[in-house]
């Protein structure tokens, strides 16, 4: 397979590995072949025919996304025939598209709109059937408008190939073809984990995130409310992209400034509760390791993953840490500890979180997430929603003077910040576990063996004599493999496992900015590691605010108060498909 072939694309010779597609070969010489159904994250499908090219000697135009290169092949990507064919394809796609672009969530960020512009489609000569499907908002995180579906099948493929959840399918045929969950059920009535990868890969406005921006603005405008906002680690390396920035650029202080300008009363950091999660989770892990309780222990702050576990592997929930996610720990403390310390009536607090994640919306609504006596987190906005809100608030993001998080629950360490990428929670936990177990100072805090993008990574960690074996998985397809291995008896002898629902971790969560950069994951991850390196403190237990909360309020990690506020239980979820 490592053989190279040389072909000619638009008169230019190019040597590429055998087996890659014409589309990928063209990229290497700077030729952009437009696509719609194709996406670099998933296997080619060749359904839309937007990427057609002329291949010398071939009878018909070839789909560049799927057509493999061959030695001596002569490809033309910009002939009259190609241009006309592509334009016609886009025109036909538009024939039954609603074309209400002005009021569409994806306006100016829609691949169909962009194609129409690129192809120079100035009129649509055909009038197709417009079925007028009702909007499906039965899912707590994701909204489907089937009228805008172009049948590219990206959602079908990402949900099956990457996540192995298989919510969507193509149904019916010909003009009646649709993309739908089984039996035409609503997206809230099937076994969906709410990971939102479909909403991040959909080229149009057919799958979007449930919009809670107006509710948050209403709270900000209510003079009786104290609106507290927390920002997740992964948001700070992606939000800037919505304002022209590069993936991975760390814009924390601008974001904090913008949130203050928008009118949030207190701007606090989820990194603080990420550190707190480490205190609780590392304590729980060492306890379970010593006593051999339900090992391996699975750590994760990923609510999409938790849904997956509860839906597909309920028999394994006992392996999961009882710790809440940082978002929910924050929520529970905002209306208890924070209210008490800051002398605010908890009834007046509206707790908002800015998350890279669509499943967090569901997590906040779970009935057990009310340890404060109120709903712990009132509203969850995704990074994309925050971008919209900032734009509608008239904020020139790039001109915002930098600002600092407000004190208490506003300070996080480097360990907290790397929660946003795959391997980060594991590394953060190891930094603290090492010092707890050995009583020695950990000199090199970077655990390179758990870093990287491998789907399932394993490492042997030596805690100064105590050997532990850890695994890190990201993407639910990889998580499924790990679960199957545990069911077969954990022959890998893992002690500690980190799982993130989304490939790459939270930095590529379903609520993050939609990126066209093929390396966006690596860049955002590099951004978080850079943030970690630059922070003065890189171990959770060294965070002075963490030390203060245990001293003044919680007592000790894993103690009575922690259990009441910071821990939860998992249980089988039922969302059985019935006949109606």
């Amino acid at each position, binding site marked *: 397979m490592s053989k190279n072939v040389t072909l000619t694309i638009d008169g230019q010779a190019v040597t590429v590995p055998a087996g890659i597609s014409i589309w990928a070969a063209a990229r290497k010489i700077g030729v952009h072949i437009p696509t719609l159904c194709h996406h670099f994250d998933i296997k080619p499908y060749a359904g839309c025919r937007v990427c057609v090219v002329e291949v010398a000697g071939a009878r018909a135009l070839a789909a560049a996304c799927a057509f493999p290169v061959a030695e001596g092949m002569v490809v033309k990507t910009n002939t009259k025939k190609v241009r006309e064919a592509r334009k016609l394809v886009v025109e036909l796609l538009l024939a039954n598209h609603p074309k209400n672009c002005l009021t569409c969530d994806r306006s100016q960020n829609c691949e169909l709109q962009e194609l129409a512009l690129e192809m120079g489609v100035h009129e649509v000569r055909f009038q197709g059937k417009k079925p007028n499907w009702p909007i499906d908002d039965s899912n707590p995180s994701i909204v489907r408008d089937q009228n805008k579906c172009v049948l590219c099948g990206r959602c079908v493929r990402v949900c*099956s190939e990457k996540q192995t959840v*298989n*919510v*969507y*399918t*193509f*149904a*019916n*045929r010909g003009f009646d073809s649709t993309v739908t*969950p*089984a*039996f*035409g059920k609503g997206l809230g009535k*099937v076994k969906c984990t709410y990971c939102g990868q479909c909403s991040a890969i959909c080229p149009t406005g057919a799958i979007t995130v449930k919009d809670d921006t107006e509710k948050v603005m209403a709270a900000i405008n209510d003079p009786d409310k104290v609106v507290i906002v927390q920002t997740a680690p992964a948001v700070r390396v992606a939000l800037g992209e919505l304002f022209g920035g590069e993936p991975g650029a760390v814009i924390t202080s601008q974001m904090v400034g913008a949130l203050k300008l928008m009118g949030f009363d207190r701007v606090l950091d989820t990194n603080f509760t990420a550190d707190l999660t480490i205190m609780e989770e590392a304590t729980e892990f060492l306890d379970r390791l010593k006593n051999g309780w339900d090992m391996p222990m699975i750590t994760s702050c990923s609510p999409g993953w938790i849904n997956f576990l509860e839906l597909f592997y309920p028999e394994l929930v006992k392996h999961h840490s009882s710790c809440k996610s940082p978002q929910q720990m924050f929520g529970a403390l905002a209306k208890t500890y924070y209210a008490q310390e800051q002398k605010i009536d908890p009834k007046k607090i509206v707790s908002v979180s800015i998350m890279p994640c669509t499943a967090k919306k569901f997590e906040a609504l779970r009935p057990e997430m009310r340890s404060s006596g109120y709903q712990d987190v009132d509203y969850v906005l995704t990074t994309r929603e925050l971008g919209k809100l900032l734009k509608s608030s008239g904020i020139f993001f790039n001109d915002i003077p930098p600002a600092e998080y407000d004190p208490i629950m506003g300070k996080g360490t480097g360990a907290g910040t790397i929660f946003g990428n795959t391997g980060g929670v594991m590394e953060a936990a190891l930094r603290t576990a090492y010092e707890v177990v050995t009583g020695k100072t950990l000199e090199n805090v970077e655990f390179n063996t758990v870093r990287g993008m491998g789907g399932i990574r394993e490492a042997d960690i030596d805690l100064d004599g105590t050997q532990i074996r850890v695994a890190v998985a990201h993407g639910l397809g990889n998580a499924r493999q790990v679960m199957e291995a545990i069911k077969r008896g954990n022959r890998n002898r893992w002690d500690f496992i980190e799982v993130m629902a989304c490939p790459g971790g939270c930095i590529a969560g379903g609520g993050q900015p939609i990126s066209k950069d093929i390396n966006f994951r690596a860049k955002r991850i590099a951004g978080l590691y850079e943030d970690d390196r630059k922070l003065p403190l890189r171990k959770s237990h060294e965070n002075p605010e963490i030390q203060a909360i245990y001293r003044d309020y919680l007592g000790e990690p894993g103690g009575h108060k922690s259990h009441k506020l910071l821990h939860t239980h998992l249980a089988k979820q039922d969302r059985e*498909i*019935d*006949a*109606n």
Partner: protein
Amino acid sequence: MNSNPQAKCECLDLSKLEPVFERYKEVVNGALIPVLQGAQDVYGYLPVPVLEAIAERLVVPISQVYGVVTFYAQFHLEPRGKHIVRTCQGTACHVRGASKILDALKGNLGVAPGKATDDLQFTLETVACIGACGLAPVMMVDQSTHGRLTPDAIPEILDKYRQ
């Protein structure tokens, strides 16, 4: 989606699927379509619990099973009548009044094309052409062809099949 009470019939005996599974147990991949065909032979159509049982046994996602069932015209998600009435909508039948024949059938049976009557005596279907243009307008009931139809002739023909 499924409004027919038969679809949720509690008397559905899933053990009747076992011989079908047994027949294809050696097939590693690709048994889905023959198993669906076998199941439809047993139950007359493919009720949801049957599809769920097939998905579970063959370890195929239920969404994919639904996709296959809706793709092929041979599979039916709703119960079928004892007699299948196929009325022709081809060009020759069309010019000789096929639409009036269809109206008469809809009126007599009280169902839309694709649906079964409540008593499950008949399922009404339209077809593009049955290749008997000389007899237009034409319909088939089960394997019998009825040609040169008029709307008035419909009740008498259907009554012959009624029990």
